[in-house]
């Protein structure tokens, strides 16, 4: 099924006919190289201020698509545009500038934050690295306040943070250099439900306050329903649904989307014995 492109007037990010394959290891040295199609001829337009959820089963190509969008990987064929400028092939300088504009929030903050570094060092890192013009430490305090963290945490090491605090630090680090777009890879999957609700509210608040767009890969469809106005459903390397979240939830077109919605765990009225 071909993806129905969501119409946006000025796409911030645009993928056109992007394909990516993966060579599998050979069973023995003379065996032919087996190639696994991650996705082929995929096209997608993303608006500057859109909040988009990307859902799908494990192995459907979500993470590979994320790597292309983060310019961490190059497609085998097809073009990637940012603000109408082709990203690949591109110079190291243009990719560096792109990575400043598009920031990443990881899935597991506990393993993505260096445990021996203090919160201050972590949030100030990108500012120092990219040559921030203003006063670095006042900017660090500003973003920490924005994500609801007290500046008394500045000297605390990442290894001593709770799960929710670590995810807030990861969000503060992404916000520090004032990006135009955030890409989050399952930002709440390792957190319990009360913390998930807090991080969802935080993401909603920071994207609204800063006028940023957000693409969030998630397994939690109810979280996407609460945060994202547009939902992409991926299956076997294809975007099988691309519509307003509420429309997809009310009337899923694809059988796989219906399966996903029916599998959402819920609190039962009677508990299985």
């Amino acid at each position, binding site marked *: 099924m071909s993806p129905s492109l969501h119409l946006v007037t000025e796409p911030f990010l645009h993928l056109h006919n992007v394909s990516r394959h993966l060579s*599998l*290891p050979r*069973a023995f040295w003379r065996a032919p190289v087996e190639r696994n199609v991650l996705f082929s001829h995929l096209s997608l337009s993303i608006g500057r201020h859109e909040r988009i959820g990307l*859902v*799908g*089963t*494990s*192995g459907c190509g979500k993470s590979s698509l994320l790597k292309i969008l983060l310019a961490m990987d190059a497609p085998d064929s097809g073009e990637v545009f940012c603000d109408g400028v082709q990203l690949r092939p591109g110079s190291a300088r243009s990719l560096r500038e792109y990575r400043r504009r598009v920031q990443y929030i990881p*899935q597991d903050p*506990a393993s993505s934050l260096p445990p021996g570094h203090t919160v201050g060092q972590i949030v100030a890192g990108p500012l120092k690295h990219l040559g921030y013009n203003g006063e670095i430490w006042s900017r660090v305090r500003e973003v920490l306040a924005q994500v609801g963290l007290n500046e008394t945490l500045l000297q605390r090491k990442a290894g001593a943070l*709770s*799960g*929710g605090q670590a995810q807030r630090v990861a969000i503060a680090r992404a916000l520090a250099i004032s990006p135009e777009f955030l890409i989050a890879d*399952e930002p709440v*999957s*390792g*957190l*319990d*439900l*009360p*913390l*998930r*609700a807090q991080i969802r509210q935080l993401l909603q608040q920071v994207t609204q306050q800063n006028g940023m767009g957000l693409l969030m890969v998630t*397994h*939690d*469809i*109810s*979280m996407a*329903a*609460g945060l994202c106005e547009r939902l992409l459903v991926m299956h076997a390397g294809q975007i099988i649904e691309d519509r307003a979240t*509420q429309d997809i*939830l*009310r*009337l*899923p077109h694809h059988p796989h989307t*219906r*399966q*996903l*919605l*029916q*599998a*959402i*765990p*819920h*609190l*039962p009225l*009677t*508990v*299985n*014995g």
Partner: protein
Amino acid sequence: MLSHIKWSMTMSGLKGMTAEKAKKCEPVLAVEGLTLWIAGEKRISDVSFRIHAGERVCLLGASGCGKSLTAKTITGTPPPGVRISGSIRVNGVEVCGKHPVVRPQAGRVATVFQDSSTALNPLMTLGKQLRLALPAACDGEITAMLEAVGLGDIPRFAARYPAELSGGQRQRLCIALAMQSSSSLLVADEPTTALDVLTQQSVVDVMRKASEARALLFITHDITVAAQLCQHALVMENGRLVESASMAQLLSQPQHPYTQRLVQAAKQAALPSQIASLCGVAV
């Protein structure tokens, strides 16, 4: 705050029973006053609970509350440098502080880890790993074992490396291997975290099947998944057991403030009932 909870049958209830009956009532897992320090800091404080054969019990709590540390202490793989006090009895055998290899057969625990990619050897094909784990099993037995968890296509899987399987396939393989263990206790440490809802559902089904003949301790922070699988719930906060109740009671009448927040958040996170019913999701 409840600091010391014993929810199972107490020893006083066993008075007057015959030795045989008492043995039948003996819990598969009995944790008494478990306390654990890391670098002088108390991380688990006076945790006590019991699980009997055929029971499915979940240990709920926020990240960092000590639930995985409790599970690792039970399985005999706590982090290095810990100081442990208290008692852990598996099938009546005292195993507290004992590494799995020095435990007697009855005291060993089947384990399913959170991260299936590190639970399997990344440099060995799955066929070789299965043969290594089950040297005496014939092909038919291995096929039946894999079919039980929905991985029936042996020729396809045997030549593959763990990295070439999806997260759900790897996790189901780990559960299949745990099911081959003769242990009567299965400890699963967040086996459904980071899995999509479809895979999560299939893993929960497989876990239910795996725990039919054994006791299950299911560690999770997701109360909605725990509610699908477990009959009883233990809730931990800051290294202490703060609530213990049947799952139905926990969902309808949570007592501790953390449990109340947890149940409230789960209800709020659910899809609006109007949309959910349109999707065919039962609420």
